[in-house]
């Protein structure tokens, strides 16, 4: 169906019409409305929708009001409402008529308000969905994430290792349920070709914890996490539809995941949402070797818990800290680690909250600026309508009556603006979603719905009331006597002062916004120019994940990776190739403890830890990571050869400030427990965690000496080579059942990392630009008006011999004076406001002198431009004509 949103609005408005009409014609009317929309957009695409919607809304409102006030339908008696709604209706009808009679004013005012309200509504709908709505689980406030923390190491939110989780779960009394989660990407076979799907490994009690009832079947039995406790799987609604055609006998059927057969035990309801999407849920099982002492440093589990009724967050936190302390006393890998609680929803949105509130703030500023502009327009009209008001007062209208009239009129104006704004928002939101980083939780669900629309209407009414009051403050002071002197020129000086003050405010507000945008953009550019320590172009990355069933032993895994890389290296199209377990900026990281042999200041008990990477020969060369000393890895560094390690510069500087680390020995914990290794090289620093994160202490070991079941291939090839096809072919020739994971150019990882920052910079810049345009229009309006009021004065001055340049200068001077006042105020405001931005800025002060000089200069230049047209008109005033009018 076309135009769903416009139809929705129209149908809502149809309810205003008399019932007799609505009952017999609403369908036809809606159809005609849509047909008009189609016809107009075919005939003249530009703004056609807008015109038709505004026209139809006017039609509905004015027709309804016109017919209802004139005594309703033929045959029915006019009923006088006891509460004076009749009068209100008449006011509304009168208001619509007068808006229609000054189409230019109405259009500009409605569009200005629509811009402000539409932007606010669009951003609000995102903020509402992402930040404000409760999670779709019963009693969501009881849900918490639990983290390991280590203040000394600056780790405020670390994932949890399996043995620590098991200990927590056994001892913690504050929680009714505790569950661990780990993301998986199993291969689904049995269809046309093996397919990587998204999965989640979770403790069997996860669905009881979230209180999610199954659509079909049941949840996991509690013993499902025993090693080899039966391969069970719970399907998402989507996979149940696509794989089992929504059949009810899916329970008990099987599914091949990673070459193992899983039995379907349950299907999740369609409205089940979890922050990370998963097609399948499997029980998280711990093999005995994963619960060993060495694994206490392997922190990779996310932990969710539900508070027991009557237990407070503080009590739970205290209990968890006590447990962590006692674990630290008995296990060296737990020493120094505390536990912390963060609400589940808070945890989801934590990193986006400041950015989203920043955007909301920016839109509200634009809304305020839009309102200031409309107030200005309204004031001009109040001045023009003075005579009419005086006549009405003379004919016996009360001041209250006129006030109510003005209130109704401006509320209607604002509500019209709000409706058009909601339309703008409904068009803007899909683009906003496309622009937004995909990691933003629940972003896909964002829609402009009734809740957002209601907020919009409320906001419009509030804006309308403010406008009405402001305009009445100048309007009702008119006395009947003024009619006689109706041709007086110029407004009262006080009112001119008010308008100038508003202009100064407007310029100041947009300046604050522009400075904020300038800082964000400069910070973004700086981030883009950071040297990440590796080459960010010409490399294709492809992830591979080996099923444990067929690649159970280390040598099996090592030889597959070696074979793939050697095959690729022989290809003429491939320049260099390598692989790593943790690609920079991909969000994947491992961290293990280490000690330095023969150094009492650096033993395993002291819990030093380093970012850990297992890489193949060729990895450093492919990624363009420079070798600072020693040698890179070779294929001879395999299981049977001496164990070796390469450290990064940061580590070399910190632990061997005055000597050469090459040849020294380290003991590094990893899959196989602590292993002593000889340092054979020092490698340049890489910004693994993000462009804004300083490099940490890192160790690299050969993948052949510590073969993990997953790795990411990095392939450097000349431009125009379809690397993914080559990799796929070589992988298939080795193991046809092995799917290739996500293939992404390295730029993709960088872009994905930059996406949220780009999002906030672009949006804030957009709002700042509209603020600038609105203030330029505002300045133009005020200066134009001043010029038109002083036509006679200018005429007299010109007749007395004033030079046109002087006239020009004095007009421009007035505008620039306003702009300068606004600029001073704005810079002061920005100095106060930008400190709140500092958390979002990278290597740039919130008081950056470049931004603080360039932006005010831009604003003054725009103000000059806005004054130019009225000034030219002033110079062209014909002295004779002007004098004749005095």
């Amino acid at each position, binding site marked *: 169906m076309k135009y769903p949103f416009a139809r929705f609005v129209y149908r809502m408005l149809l309810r205003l019409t008399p019932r007799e009409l609505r009952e017999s014609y609403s369908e*036809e*009317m809606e159809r005609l409305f849509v047909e*008009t929309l189609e016809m107009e957009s075919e005939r003249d695409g530009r703004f056609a929708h807008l015109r038709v919607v505004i026209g139809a809304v006017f*039609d*509905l409102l004015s027709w309804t009001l016109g017919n209802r006030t004139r005594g309703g339908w033929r045959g029915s008696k006019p009923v006088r409402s006891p509460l004076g709604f009749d009068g209100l209706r008449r006011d509304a009808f009168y208001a619509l008529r007068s808006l229609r009679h000054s189409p230019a004013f109405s259009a500009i005012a409605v569009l200005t308000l629509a811009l402000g309200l539409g932007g606010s509504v669009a951003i609000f709908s995102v903020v509402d969905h992402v930040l404000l709505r409760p999670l779709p689980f019963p009693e969501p406030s009881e849900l918490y994430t639990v983290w390991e923390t280590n203040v000394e190491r600056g780790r405020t939110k670390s994932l949890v290792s399996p043995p620590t989780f098991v200990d927590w779960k056994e001892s913690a009394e504050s929680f009714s349920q505790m569950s661990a989660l780990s993301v998986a990407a199993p291969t689904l076979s049995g269809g046309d070709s093996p397919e990587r799907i998204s999965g989640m490994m979770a403790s069997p009690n996860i669905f009881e914890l979230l209180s999610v009832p199954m659509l079909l079947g049941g949840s996991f039995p509690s013993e499902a996490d025993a090693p080899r406790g039966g391969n069970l799987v719970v399907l998402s609604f989507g996979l149940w539809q696509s794989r089992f055609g929504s059949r009810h006998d899916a329970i008990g059927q099987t599914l091949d995941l990673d070459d193992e057969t899983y039995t379907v035990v349950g299907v999740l309801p369609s409205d089940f949402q979890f922050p990370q999407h998963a097609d399948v849920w499997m029980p998280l099982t711990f093999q005995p070797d994963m619960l060993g002492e060495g694994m206490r440093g392997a922190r990779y589990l996310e932990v969710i818990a539900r508070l027991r009724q009557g237990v407070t967050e503080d009590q739970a936190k205290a209990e968890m800290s006590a447990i962590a302390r006692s674990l630290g006393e008995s296990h060296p890998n737990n020493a120094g680690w505390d536990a912390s609680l963060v609400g589940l929803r808070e945890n989801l949105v934590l990193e986006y909250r400041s950015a989203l509130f920043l955007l909301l703030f920016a839109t509200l500023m634009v809304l305020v600026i839009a309102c200031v502009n409309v107030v200005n327009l309204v004031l001009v009209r109040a001045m023009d309508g003075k005579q009419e008001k005086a006549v009405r007062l003379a004919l016996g209208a009360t001041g209250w009556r006129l006030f109510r009239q003005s209130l109704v009129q401006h509320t209607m104006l604002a509500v019209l603006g709000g409706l058009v704004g909601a339309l703008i928002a409904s068009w803007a939101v899909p683009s906003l979603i496309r622009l937004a980083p995909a990691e933003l939780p629940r972003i896909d669900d964002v829609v402009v719905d009734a809740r957002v629309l209601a907020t919009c209407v409320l906001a419009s009414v509030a804006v309308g009331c403010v406008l009405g009051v402001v305009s009445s403050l100048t309007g009702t002071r008119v006395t009947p006597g003024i009619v006689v002197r109706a041709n007086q020129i110029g407004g009262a000086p006080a009112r001119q002062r008010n308008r100038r003050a508003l202009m100064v405010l407007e310029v100041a507000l947009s300046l604050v916004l522009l400075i904020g945008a300038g800082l964000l953009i400069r910070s973004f550019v700086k981030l883009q120019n950071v040297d990440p320590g590796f080459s960010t172009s010409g490399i294709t990355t492809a992830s591979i994940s080996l099923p444990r069933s067929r690649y159970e032993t280390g040598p099996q895994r090592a030889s597959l990776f070696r074979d793939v890389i050697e095959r690729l290296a022989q290809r003429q199209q491939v320049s260099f190739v390598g692989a790593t377990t943790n690609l920079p900026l991909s969000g994947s990281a491992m961290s293990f403890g280490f000690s330095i042999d023969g150094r009492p200041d650096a033993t395993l008990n002291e819990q030093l830890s380093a970012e850990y990477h297992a890489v193949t020969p060729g990895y450093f060369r492919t990624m363009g990571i420079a070798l600072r000393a020693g040698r890179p890895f070779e294929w001879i560094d395999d299981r049977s050869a001496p164990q070796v390690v390469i450290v990064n510069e940061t580590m070399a500087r910190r632990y061997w400030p005055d000597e050469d680390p090459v040849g020294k020995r380290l003991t590094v914990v990893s899959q196989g427990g602590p292993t002593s290794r000889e340092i054979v090289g020092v490698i340049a620093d890489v910004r693994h965690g993000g462009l804004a994160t300083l490099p940490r202490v890192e160790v690299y070991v050969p993948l052949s000496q510590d073969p993990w079941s997953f790795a990411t291939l990095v392939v450097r090839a000349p431009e125009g080579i379809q690397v993914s096809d080559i990799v796929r072919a070589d992988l298939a020739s080795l193991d046809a059942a092995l799917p290739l994971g996500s293939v992404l150019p390295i730029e993709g990882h960088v872009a994905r990392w930059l996406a949220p920052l780009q999002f906030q910079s672009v949006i804030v810049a957009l709002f700042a630009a509209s603020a600038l345009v609105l203030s330029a229009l505002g300045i133009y309006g005020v200066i134009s008006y001043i010029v038109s009021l002083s036509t006679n004065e200018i005429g007299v001055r010109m007749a007395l011999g004033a030079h046109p340049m002087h006239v020009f200068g004095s007009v421009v001077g007035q505008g620039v004076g306003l702009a300068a006042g606004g600029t001073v105020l704005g810079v002061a405001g920005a100095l106060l406001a930008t400190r709140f931005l500092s958390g979002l800025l990278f290597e740039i002060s919130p008081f950056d002198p470049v931004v603080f000089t360039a932006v005010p200069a831009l604003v003054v230049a725009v103000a000059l431009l806005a004054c130019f047209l009225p000034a030219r008109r002033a110079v062209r005033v014909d002295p004779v004509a002007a004098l004749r009018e005095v």
Partner: protein
Amino acid sequence: MEKSTTLKPQWFQILLAIADGELHGLGIMKEVLEQTDGQMRLWPAMLYGSLKKMVDDGLVEEREGPVGPGSETDRRRFYGITEAGRQRLADEVARLAKYVRVAGEKDVVRGTVIP
């Protein structure tokens, strides 16, 4: 007679539009748009509001739409002019014609040729 002969402009245009055959809503809207050179656009509420009153007054009646091969007459409502409607239209045309004639005789709009 004088009281009721003056037709509202929208009513006049609607009657004129369906004078040579019944039309549905969009048809009337398009026809009026055309015969007024785009001067009068009948928005849904105005159109159907007027139609309802004109049906009540017996000037217009709802009719079966023409059924053609594969025509999309499903649930579309067509409107045709009644005899009373035709009479009112003729009266109005005569009244307007009289004014046009008088204006022509007085040569009110100098230099403009009035047919």
